[in-house]
């Protein structure tokens, strides 16, 4: 019975891996066929030499960086304050953080365009609106990652210990809380990065250069380059995941109390 169960488990694992990797492998192989009859990285060279790629990709990098910075500045103090002072509000805040999952991006972007394309808030062209919108759609990942990080430490006691030693709120946040949830913040940051990199609707409708709209535009009249872009996009996401797990193995979050 045990051996049969193991065989089944391995069968399902292999099936899952094939389901996931076969299309990727096919895309990768397809991306190497830009030159007739030989396998080459020509599609990748074409992509990297395209000024629109540089513009779109650097645009996404900028939006992602700004989104991460705004997200950290906004969500770390909020999640910390909620845990410390208004724990009863946690369920309400958690509900709010899930709203971006419920509201479709197309509805969200039309809401933004309608609200901010007329006075008194005529800011539809401002990059700040796009960053704010990205901050909102990455909120479920960023806020929850931070909240999970805060759950792993005794926020109240650490805060009180620091206060009793003379520390103010800034010192507590930057020297006690943030260093102890560093891994959680990085998790949230890389997830936000991946979300922003793959996001299409907001960038397209708010007319800002970004990686995903470029990818779609390229797919209209090219065959191999979009496949190369898909592989690049996967590689970037995996690199993010790899960094998360590497950092997570560090000594970032030691247990509070306990000991051995």
């Amino acid at each position, binding site marked *: 019975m045990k051996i049969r169960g193991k065989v089944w488990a391995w069968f399902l694992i292999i099936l899952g891996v094939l389901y996931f990797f076969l299309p990727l492998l096919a895309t990768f192989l397809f991306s190497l066929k830009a030159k007739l009859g030989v396998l080459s990285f020509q599609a990748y060279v074409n992509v990297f030499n395209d000024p629109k790629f540089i513009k779109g990709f650097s645009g996404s990098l900028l939006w992602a960086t700004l989104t991460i910075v705004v997200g950290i500045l906004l969500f770390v103090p909020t999640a910390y304050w909620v845990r410390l002072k208004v724990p009863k509000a946690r369920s309400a805040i958690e509900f709010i953080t899930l709203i971006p999952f419920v509201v479709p991006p197309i509805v969200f972007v039309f809401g933004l365009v309608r609200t901010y394309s007329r006075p008194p808030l005529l800011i539809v062209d401002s990059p700040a609106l796009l960053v704010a919108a990205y901050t909102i759609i990455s909120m479920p990942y960023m806020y929850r990652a931070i909240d999970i990080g805060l759950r792993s430490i005794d926020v109240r*006691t650490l805060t009180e*210990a620091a206060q*009793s030693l003379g520390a103010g709120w800034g010192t507590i946040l930057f020297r006690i809380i943030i260093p102890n949830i560093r891994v959680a913040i990085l998790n949230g940051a890389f997830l936000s990065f991946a979300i922003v990199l793959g996001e299409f609707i907001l960038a397209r409708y708010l007319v800002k250069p970004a990686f995903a709209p470029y990818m779609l535009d390229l797919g209209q009249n090219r065959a191999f380059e979009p496949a190369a872009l898909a592989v690049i996009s996967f590689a970037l996401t995996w690199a993010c995941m790899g960094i998360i797990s590497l950092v997570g193995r560090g000594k970032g979050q030691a247990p*509070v*109390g306990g*000991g051995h």
Partner: protein
Amino acid sequence: MTHLLLNNISKQFASNTVVQDFNLNVEKGEFVSFLGPSGCGKTTTLRMIAGFEVPTMGTVILDDKDITNQAPNQRNVGMVFQAYALFPNMTVAQNIGFGLKIRRENNGAIKERVAEMLSLIHLEQRGNSYPYQLSGGQQQRVALARALAIHPQVLLLDEPLSALDAKIRVQLRAEIRAIQKKLGITAIYVTHDQEEALSISDRIVVMYEGKIEQVGSPFEIYNFPTTAFVASFVGTLNTTSAEVIDPTTHLLQMDGVQLQAAEGLEDKHKGDKITIAIRPERLNFISQERKTNILDCTVENITFLGSVVRIQVSIGSNRFYMDTFNNPFLELPKIGDKDQVTCSREAVLVLRQ
């Protein structure tokens, strides 16, 4: 000279009064314990001294300065928590030096003070360790050193030993007391463990339902509890109701058995119902001629408690415990034996109603 004064302190959370009319003077260098069951308000009172809670009424005066509304980081008060609360991202040395760094002391002074503190807690070799690399006892010693490093005016300890095992607890409480005496620092210690409070305190404040029941030295609290709660909470005590027969001679009647107390009936009248208490170790089997407090009893049970043997006897309808030191030559009665027990008049405590 009063060092810390808690003046008529009360604390309410919504409609729930947690601390009520709390008055206490603490002398400089004194070790005072707040003792009581969970929810009696002892930790809330401590947190009001630390500044984590603001009293609904009353004032906290430290060295003649009203600190009632001062923020916790503005008070020079060191605190040790039950959960250690060491900063996980910092080494032991960085933890100890944290408060001094906040005070912008120079690196040399910080290094010197950290070394001094590490030596005080006998962890000279662990300065570069992280908290998670230390045992619970070691972590709590570091927490103590961290609180002491800033030269606090008062050291507050909130059940610091509760998370440790019994042997470490006994060892560490002796260390805490020795360090407190050596530095001459004023300390307020919260505990629900009566043995802990009795063993390390200069004075104990016994609290119940937000109020002070009794303040006194460990000797006074143990030997002369003034209320039924203190009597029942501190140590094992036989308590029962009695009737005053003659207040001038302190004669009582307990379930048909006459008994004489030494004091406590000055304001009582004949026929008054009172509560009396006798410590188990103050009861003895009669070995010599005595004239007072001779009580007929029946042995009901015998329990070995290590160094002490606890004998349960029935006197009338009351069941009393009687403690006697254990030794290999102890002659114990048998269960069911009829015998006589006695106690001095001073052993009969009349409790405040």
